[in-house]
């Protein structure tokens, strides 16, 4: 799937408009053949990165290397990358076939060859019968696929996707996520996908690069960023994590304690040297996911588990899961925590006002430095 060969490398690339820096000096290596997602809220600089790679804007500093060579001097139309734009940017005066064949046509590829490859590309995105339609006659999902076919037909080294699914409704977006992933596997081209939707990033990416305020906060597999956030921002950005602030206590390379208002919490720190090696007394957060939390049968946690007690403030049905908000009793006032349990047809055995003891395993509790 993903080789270790580096296709594209950003070295200390920064961008500022006047005195405001939208991108601090960032380093990023894109591997050949991977599906990498840049994830961040709006204004995090993720689109700026994509547009700098595409050549639409010049970096203020640093260099972008393709196969180890700086491509600063390469104009947009000479870069072996193609972009799928957020608004698709299909040419309204050309039919689907002409749109898809545009990249080959401007390279003066023979007419018959263009027609052949257009057919191929349209078959790949399952739009063969619509070749003579105009963009205005297509649905959003179809336009999306035309834009994709238009980008892949030139066989670029890298395909840049700028929030291409943002305009689609939820159901279609899920379909397109799978579809994009399938296509990427089939043509084995590197995809760089920009999005603000963490579920989308998790569903598609080989690696996720989380950004905020012009900085890269974490780069790793979806599993790593989901289960092992390295900063408070990442921990909060992925779903509805529970965060409890405290002071680092003793530990080893695998586990470490943190003293919190809820008492001492045991957390896993394997593979997180920066937390394992942090000095005792440093401020940190214990992070655990709502779905890791189980209502405990009785007070007192089994070995290797953490527990806390509180009163249920709210229970809400959310389809597959039911989410309960529990005000945990801490020595500095109540602390709200979310608990996710599987929904049942006859409801769950928790009601607002109940006293509840919850437990979560140390294995699924991580630490991030404050």
């Amino acid at each position, binding site marked *: 799937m993903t080789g270790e060969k580096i296709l594209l490398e950003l070295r200390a690339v920064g961008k500022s408009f006047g005195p405001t820096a939208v991108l601090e000096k960032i380093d990023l290596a894109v591997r050949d053949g991977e599906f990498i997602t840049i994830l961040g809220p709006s204004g995090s600089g993720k689109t700026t990165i994509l547009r700098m790679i595409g050549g639409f804007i010049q970096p203020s500093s640093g260099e972008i290397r393709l196969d180890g060579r700086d491509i600063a001097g390469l104009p*947009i*139309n000479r870069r072996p990358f193609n972009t799928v734009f957020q608004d698709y940017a299909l040419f309204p005066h050309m039919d689907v076939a002409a749109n898809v064949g*545009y990249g080959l046509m*401007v*390279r003066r590829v023979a007419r018959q060859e263009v027609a052949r490859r257009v057919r191929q590309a349209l078959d790949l995105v399952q739009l063969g019968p619509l070749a003579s339609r*105009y963009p205005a006659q297509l649905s959003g999902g179809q336009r999306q696929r035309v834009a994709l076919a238009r980008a892949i037909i030139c066989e670029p080294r890298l395909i840049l996707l700028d929030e291409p699914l943002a305009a689609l409704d939820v159901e279609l977006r899920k379909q397109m996520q799978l579809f994009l992933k399938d296509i990427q596997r089939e043509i084995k081209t590197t995809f760089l996908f920009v999005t603000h939707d963490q579920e989308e990033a998790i569903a598609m990416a080989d690696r996720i690069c989380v950004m905020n305020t012009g900085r890269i906060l974490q780069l790793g597999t979806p599993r790593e960023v989901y289960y092992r956030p390295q900063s408070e921002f990442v921990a909060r950005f992925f779903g509805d994590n529970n965060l409890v602030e405290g002071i680092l206590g003793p530990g080893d390379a695998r586990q470490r304690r943190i003293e919190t208002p809820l008492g001492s919490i045991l957390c896993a720190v394997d593979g997180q040297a920066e937390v394992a090696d942090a000095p005792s007394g440093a401020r940190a957060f214990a992070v655990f996911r709502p779905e890791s939390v189980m209502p405990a049968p009785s007070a007192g946690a089994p070995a290797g588990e953490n527990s806390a007690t509180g009163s249920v403030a709210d229970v809400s049905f959310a389809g597959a899961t039911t989410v309960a908000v529990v005000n945990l009793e801490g020595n500095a006032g109540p602390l709200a925590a979310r608990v996710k349990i599987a929904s049942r047809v006859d409801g769950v055995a928790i009601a607002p006002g109940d006293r509840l003891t919850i437990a979560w395993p140390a294995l699924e509790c991580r630490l991030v430095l404050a």
Partner: protein
Amino acid sequence: MSSGSGVNRRIAGLPLDRARARLWPAALGLTAYGLPITFILLPLAAFLTYSFFYVTGATTHYDLTLLNYRRFFTDTIFLPVFWRTCVLCLEVAVLAIGFGYPVAFFLAGLSGRKKYALLMLLLVPLLMSYIIKIYAIRSILGGTGFLNRALLDVGIIDEPLTIFVYNLNAVLLTLTALLIPFAVLPIFLSLERIPRSLLEASADLGASDLQTFARVILPLSLPGTIAAATFVFVLAIGDFLTPQMVGGQSGFTFGRIIYSQFGSAFNWPFGAALSVILAAVVILAIVIAARFTGRGREFR
């Protein structure tokens, strides 16, 4: 409207609710339909009717006849002038587009405040009196005008040229100069409406600037360009003042013939018939243009 059950409040005998409900739409309808009918449709109808009357000597006969139209098509004077005027106005349209497109392109390429400041500057002549502008152009093109004196001073010519005054060339140049702003505006707007992401997509797919212009910008600005050409053509063909003032003896156009029918010849029915023919040409031009730009509806 008002429900029948309630009490109708009245002041000085006039019902409040219902009076409002009925009078107001009626007044609105009368203005909306009445004004155009009175001031546009009725005069047009009057003109059309007039074109079927005829004049002998100094008396107008109010019997319906096709005499005027027959005269237009059989007399050896009118058709050639008519044809020459159409060609002239087409030339004006082509020239105005030729000068206007680069100007519009340049304007659309500017950024922010500079763009609109220059656009306003371009529109300033539209606020000036038409006659003053014609005089100004006459003083540039005339025998002792700016153009001739400049050419004399530089030494390109030995005596003032007469090819720019009181002939069709003068009409052509003057009309073009006066109508260029009308060509620039629609082209500028159509260029402005092209999403910048289309240009990015074109470059991204490997097109050079020239290819992007030829394949994306030009076709997408075509509806605006055709609209501009239609504007200019229609305005030029209806103009009689410019040919009258700069055309001299040889610069005779169809508009001037119509003008003379109402003025010196005092043959209103024949003038009306010629006007109807001119109107038919204008309508035809607009229909053809709509056909061209109407194709846009497919993809917009």
